[in-house]
């Protein structure tokens, strides 16, 4: 049996999730924000893969789920970046706090 308890993996995932979240909500550069979101999704994947091995009923499903999540994450990142490109073309900035033309 494994010497590393499931909790450790889960805790790692939790920490990474929180880091990603904090990054996504504080960094000024939009690219970093997007990449932070990826980090959050990665944390989710760790969870899924962990559960795939240590869960109530270990199954491959967790890994499959993680793969789907990755695919989606990649697509999301690409789209996010494309949107940033078109925004940059008009606004000449990638600073997220300058995107406040619409408010209140």
């Amino acid at each position: 049996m494994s010497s590393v308890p499931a909790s450790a993996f889960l805790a790692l995932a939790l920490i990474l999730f929180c880091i990603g979240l904090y990054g996504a909500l504080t960094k000024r550069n939009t690219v970093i924000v997007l990449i932070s979101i990826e980090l959050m999704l990665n944390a989710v994947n760790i969870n899924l893969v962990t559960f795939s091995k240590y869960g109530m009923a270990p199954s491959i499903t967790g890994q499959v789920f993680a793969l789907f999540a990755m695919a989606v994450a990649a697509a999301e990142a690409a789209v996010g970046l494309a949107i940033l490109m078109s925004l940059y073309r008009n606004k000449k900035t990638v600073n997220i706090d300058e995107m406040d033309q619409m408010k209140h």
Partner: protein
Amino acid sequence: MMENAWLIPLFPLLSFLILLLIGKRLREASAYVGILLTLASLVFSILVLFERFTEPTYITKFDWLTIGDLHLTAGFEVNQLNALMLFIVSLVSFLVHTYSKGYMHGDERFPVFYAYLGLFTFAMLGLVISPNLLQTYIFWELVGVGSFLLIGFYFYKEEAKAAAKKAFIMTRIGDVGLFIGMILIFWQTKSFEYSEIFRAVEAGAVSQTMITLTAILIFIGAVGKSGQFPLHTWLPDAMEGPTPVSALIHAATMVAAGVYLVAALFPLFQASQTALLTVATIGAFTAIFAASIGLVQTDIKRVLAYSTVSQLGYMMLALGSAGYVAGVFHLMTHAFFKALLFLAAGSVIHAVHTQNIEEMGGLWKKLKFTGPLFLIGTLAISGVPGLSGFFSKDEILVAAWEGGHPVLFLLALIAAFFTAFYMFRLFFLVFTGEARGEQKHVHESPSLMTLPMLVLGVLAIIGGYVNTPWFGSFLGDWLVDGNEALGHGHIEGPAWIMIAATVVSLLGIYLAWLIYGKRSVARDWLSGAGGTLHTILLNKYYVDEFYQLIVVNFVKGFSYFLRFIDVFLVEGIVKGVAGFVQGLGITGSKMQNGQVQTYGAVAFIGLAVLAVIFALTGGYLK
């Protein structure tokens, strides 16, 4: 005939309706409509009266309003009092209708005037024919409206407007008393019918306190209508109306309604000594109070008005002293001579176009007809023996004495002295001496006006003989016939009372003659002696001012206070709530600062808060 008595009020109503609809086209021919229809009423009234001498009371009713199991009825009743009142009212009304044809000649609202007269007469006749309190109350109010309309007839005059308003509101204050009393007695006896009420009271089904309370409340109504202290102030002001109106409403009929009401409910009052005493006291006080004011007034109609108030006080005193017959008797004679006085005064005003007696004088020669008639009225009211006023006043004094109210008796005696004095002061100032002020084209009134006066003059002289200590008390016996509760037809009093009354009135006349006729006593003999007193009297004891200060200002002040509440409290709370919602909106929209990370942060912090709460409240951890 009595079963058709209901027609009597309807004639004037018909007159009212006709004139309202087509009066404008009829112009002054409207008068004929009014005169003829009131004549019909008069004829019917006389027939009814005579029939009532021989036949018993007639009463009939039908359901007017059903409230669940309660059936409120309407109908009419012809008893002695009613029949008498019908006669008096329709007579005076008829005479005033006739008189007005001359007096109001040329007024552009002539038909309206007759319409109003019709309305009033209808209401007054309806009032006296009512068999129950509710119906009485209804007509009671209608009478008030008639009076209101007629006082305000010259609506473009500010004074008339104010007087009309005042009359209505002051009487309404009294009416509320009647209203409450009526309802209270209803819940005690389950009926508005006079007969039912009396039966219940007699049977002791109503507690003594309740009787006293309701009786006094009803009396408040009478106080308002009859211009008794403290609700008397409207009556002198009501003189802003045309003079025939004053004669009809504010002398002979409507103001007597209060007396009538007390008389009609006499058994109720009789059941409570307190109530009777109240009535008597208020009556006596009003009698002397108003008489004292009458001493110094300079407006001919106002003098008469205060005299009316005073005389009504007499009647109340009589009733309060259990002198039912005396009260009703005086009501009748007063109707004759006061109407006469007013009509005569109207004739004088008609002639000189002023109401200020200081600007009159020496009219005896110019108004050959009016003068003597006025004198008859003056003598009658002063209680000079032989005229109607003498007999009725004597009855009242006897009643007061026998009723065991020596103080009130004394007051009444003084009031009689005052009455004689100021009435003759009036007479002397108007008819004797030199003409003061401009008096052009002074001429006697047309016969249309003098004839009614003549009729009244005759009645003022002979009216008293229906009930005298000398020739029998026919009226009194008839009035109390079949109803012992009302007391005796005639109260035998000591002879000195009659002598005292005579002496007092002659003294008054003499003093007046000294001051205003012979002028051997200076006019400021009185005012000089008591300057302050004179001023107080001239200002009517400042009652009006007092009301203005206390009541009106209080009402206004309270209203403004409420407005303050309305604007600041009620609206303020609403504004506060609205402001709160708005503020919430402002905060919410401020939070929306365009920063996408703020949005995320808010969302996540929301989640974190929920999660922490969940964790701290224990979740499902055991």
